[in-house]
C-alpha cells in the first residue's frame, strides 16, 4: 500500500470539504480521482502533500504517517493544478532551481526535447502561454524519479500533440511500477489511462473500483454516462 488514508476530515471555516475519507492506494496502478467541482479532490491531494493540514484523521505514505513530516515528499512528484510560477525568472533558471532544491538526479533534457521547450528556455515565465506553462509544469514534475506521481488536471491547455506525449509518458512511468494519481474532468483521458476510479462526492469516497465495475453497477454502456449516472444509482461503495 503506497498511500493509506483513514477517517480524513477537513473544514475550511464552515465549509466541510472532507468528511471522513477512507482510502488505500496500491502500488503500480493509475488512479483517477473524479468528482464534481468542489467535491474535495484538490483538498484530498493537498492533504497527501501536506499543504493542507487535516483536522482529523491519518495519512500514511509508504507506511509512514506524514504528520509533521516533510522528507516523504522526496518520494512524490506533484503537478499543481494551475501553473503559477514566479514570473520574473527564466524557464531554465526555474528548472535549475527546483533541481537544486530537491537535490536528486533528474532527466529534464529528454523531457524538454519531448515537449519542444528548447526555444523557451531563456524566456521569462510570465511571457509564456498557458499551454507552454503547463508543459514546463510537466517537465518539472516528471524529471525526477519518484515512486508516486500526483497530477492535478494535467491536460489543461495542452495541444493534441503534447497530450499524446503526456499519455505516453504516464504509461512509461506506470511500466516502471510507479503509482499515479490523476484528477481530471476529461472522461476520455480517464477511460484511456485509469486502472481504477475514485469518485468523490460531498467529501466522501462515493465509488472505488475499475471502469468495468462502474459500468456494471450503473448499467450504462458509455463511460461518460456511467460517471454522470453514478450518483443516481445506488452504487455506494
Amino acid at each position, binding site marked *: 500500500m503506497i498511500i493509506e488514508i483513514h477517517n480524513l476530515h477537513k473544514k475550511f471555516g464552515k465549509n466541510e470539504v472532507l468528511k471522513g475519507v477512507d482510502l488505500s492506494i496500491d502500488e503500480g496502478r493509475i488512479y483517477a480521482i473524479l468528482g464534481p467541482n468542489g467535491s474535495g479532490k484538490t483538498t484530498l491531494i*493537498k492533504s497527501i502533500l*501536506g499543504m493542507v493540514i487535516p483536522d482529523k484523521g491519518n495519512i500514511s505514505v509508504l507506511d509512514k504517517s506524514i504528520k509533521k513530516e*516533510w522528507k516523504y515528499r522526496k518520494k512524490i512528484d506533484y503537478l*499543481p493544478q494551475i501553473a*503559477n510560477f514566479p514570473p520574473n*525568472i527564466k524557464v531554465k533558471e526555474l528548472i535549475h*532551481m527546483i533541481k537544486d532544491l530537491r537535490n536528486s538526479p533528474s532527466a529534464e533534457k529528454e523531457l524538454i526535447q519531448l515537449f519542444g521547450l528548447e526555444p523557451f528556455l531563456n524566456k521569462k515565465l510570465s511571457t509564456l502561454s498557458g499551454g507552454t506553462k503547463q508543459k514546463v509544469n510537466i517537465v518539472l514534475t516528471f524529471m525526477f524519479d519518484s515512486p508516486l506521481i500526483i497530477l492535478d488536471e494535467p491536460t489543461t491547455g495542452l495541444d493534441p500533440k503534447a497530450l499524446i506525449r503526456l499519455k505516453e509518458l504516464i504509461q512509461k512511468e506506470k511500466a516502471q511500477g510507479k503509482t499515479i494519481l490523476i484528477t481530471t474532468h476529461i472522461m476520455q483521458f480517464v477511460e484511456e489511462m485509469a486502472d481504477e476510479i475514485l469518485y468523490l462526492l460531498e467529501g466522501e469516497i462515493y465509488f472505488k473500483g475499475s471502469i468495468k465495475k462502474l459500468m456494471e453497477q450503473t448499467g450504462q454502456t458509455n463511460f461518460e454516462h456511467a460517471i454522470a449516472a453514478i450518483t443516481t444509482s445506488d452504487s455506494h461503495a
Partner: protein
Amino acid sequence: MLKILKYSFYDLIRSRWSYVYFLFYLALGFVLLFLNNDVSKAVITLMNVIIVLIPLIGTIFGVMYFYNSREFTELLLAQPIKRSSIFMGQYFGVAGSLTLSLVLGLGIPFLLYGLLRSNAIFDFSLLLVTGAFLTFIFVGLSFVIAISNENKIKGFGYAVLLWLFLAVVYDGLFLMSLIVFEEYPLDTFSLVATMLNPIDLSRILILLKLDISALLGYTGAIFREFFGTDLGFLVSMAILFLWTLFPILSLGYKAKRKDF
C-alpha cells in the same frame, strides 16, 4: 533553509527596488556628510530619517514580497522542504537584502568621508545596528500580518496601520498620558512605555549615546541614568532582540498551521 534564503536574496538583489533603496541611502549619506561637514550631526539627522523610514520600508517590502511570492511558495511547499525553512528563508532573504542596502548605502559615504579616523564610529555603528534590528523587526511583523491575511488589501492595510501606530500614534498617546498623569511619578512608566515600542527604544538608545542628551532636561536624566549605563544598553539591546524574536516565532507558529 539556506537554499531558499539564497534564492530569495538573489531575487531581491536583482530587483530594481533594492537598488533604489541602496541609492537612496547612498545619496542621503553623501548629501548629509558634505553639507554638514560633521559626522556627529550627520548621524543625528540620519537617525531622524531612518528611525521612521526603515520601519516603513521594511513593512511595505515585507508585505509586498510575501504576497508576490505566493506562487513560488506554493511551488516550494510541494517539494521536500520543511515548511518553516521556506518561510524563514524568505524572511531572512528580505530582511538581509534590506539590511545590506542600508549598511552599504550609508557605510560607503561614511567610510569615504573618513569615519575610521573620527570618534563617531561608535555612534555610527550603533545607528546601523539599530537600523538592522528595525529592519528585521518590521519585515518580521509584516510577514506575520501577511500570512494571517489571505486578502492582500487587508494585509497591506493592517501592515501600514501597524507602522503608523508605532511610528506616530504611539508617541502621541505616550505624550498625552504624560500630560494627563503629570501629577504622578512617571519615571518607570515612561521607561517601560519606551521599551514597548521598538521605534522609540531605538531613538532613545541612539540619542542618549550622543552628546545632545543633556538637552532632554530632567526626564532625560532618568533616561540617561538607565540607558546611558552599560546595563541599560545591554537591556535595550536584549529587548530589541526579543522584538525581533517575537515575529519570527509567530511566523513559525502560523506557518505550521496554514493551509495552502
